[in-house]
């Protein structure tokens, strides 16, 4: 979700195999560099492999070009990597959030084949995505300050995952501003 010169990216913490909960501290949001984060929902093994491939590509890019990747460039890279597996895809939906030039927040999501969806306000993915769309749509306001953005994204996340039996067991929110990064755990309904 985008705020004023800041963004927040949040996920739930459940890892499950259909009805069995396997872990309640699963990390889905990963750092690419200080101002770029990616959240990967979907099949856990594909999310982890995708993350490893992306970190690999980004590190090589940093070494060759002596600079960090811009969020838009990174989104194009993720899209290209996903489409390479067009006929045997990775079963994950990424959510990319970063601060670009002039501290301008950038967010986008894509499907498992790499179809980019840019947005100016919020992007969602996962099993609870329909609830999330509804919650974000009603709670979102443009140009929120970091504290208000954190409140909004937390409420939207918790209320949506409560309505989905496959999501939940708490939340994890990452709030990024040009000067600092705040990580917070949310305690929701643990079920």
């Amino acid at each position: 979700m985008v705020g004023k010169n800041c963004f927040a990216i949040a996920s739930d913490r459940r890892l499950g195999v259909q009805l069995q909960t396997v872990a309640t501290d699963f990390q889905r949001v990963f750092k690419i560099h200080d101002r770029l984060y990616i959240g990967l929902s979907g099949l856990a093994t594909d999310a982890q492999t995708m993350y490893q491939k992306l970190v690999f590509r980004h590190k090589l890019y940093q070494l060759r070009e002596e600079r960090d990747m811009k969020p838009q460039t990174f989104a194009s890279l993720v899209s290209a990597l996903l489409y390479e597996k067009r006929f045997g895809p990775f079963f994950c939906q990424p959510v990319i959030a970063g601060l670009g030039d002039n501290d301008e927040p950038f967010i986008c999501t894509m499907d498992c084949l790499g179809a980019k969806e840019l947005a100016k306000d919020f992007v969602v993915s996962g099993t609870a995505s329909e609830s999330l769309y509804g919650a974000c749509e009603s709670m979102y306001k443009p140009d929120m300050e970091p504290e208000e953005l954190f409140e909004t994204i937390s409420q939207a996340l918790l209320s949506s995952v409560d309505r989905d039996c496959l999501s939940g067991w708490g939340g994890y929110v990452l709030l990024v501003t040009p000067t600092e990064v705040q990580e917070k755990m949310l305690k929701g309904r643990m079920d």
Partner: protein
Amino acid sequence: MGDSQYSFSLTTFSPSGKLVQIEHALMAVGSGQTSLGIKATNGVVVATEKKLPSILVDETSVQKIQLVTPNIGVVYSGMGPDSRVLVRKSRKQAQQYFRLYKETIPVTQLVRETAAVMQEFTQSGGVRPFGVSLLIAGYDDNGPQLYQVDPSGSYFSWKASAMGKNVSNAKTFLEKRYTEDMELEDAIHTAILTLKEGFEGQISGKNIEIGIIGTDRQFRVLSSSEIDDYLAEVE
């Protein structure tokens, strides 16, 4: 020195530590038509002689300075057909970069990849090195840049450089004339004067070629009438 015994095979070092074929490739470059480039504070200019073998050749069909991307141009000294192959490969690499990152390729990355191609041809079987040195001029987020790439695959960033027949005179002239705060217009005049130094015959818009790139980041080759205008200013 026994070097000549090692000159038959590209992939064999001579006892003195040289790859003789590459030395020969550099000779091919050194006997090619003069070309030069100058980096100004607000752009880059590249220029080359365009001496045609006969007056019957249609000079409008010959273009030595080529675009690789809208903001990167290249000129060569040496064997024309070899440079065409390199330009083709560089263009493809630039487009592949764009397809992956949706961002135009930075000049340093393009130079690095072109140099890697040239180096491949010095370490493979059954091929010969490219008989060209390239001057790559571009303008990207890091400002104006000028690189020279040699047949061995080594590349250098230059403030001003020359290659080809008249290289030592041209470089001496450039060393004297180059200033750090030169602007694009001054650089064009200096480039023309440098070419004039070693030019045999009457210089005109029809027998030299000039390419420029400024802060607009669009590389373009000047038309022969524009060159004639600059020549008149320089007289």
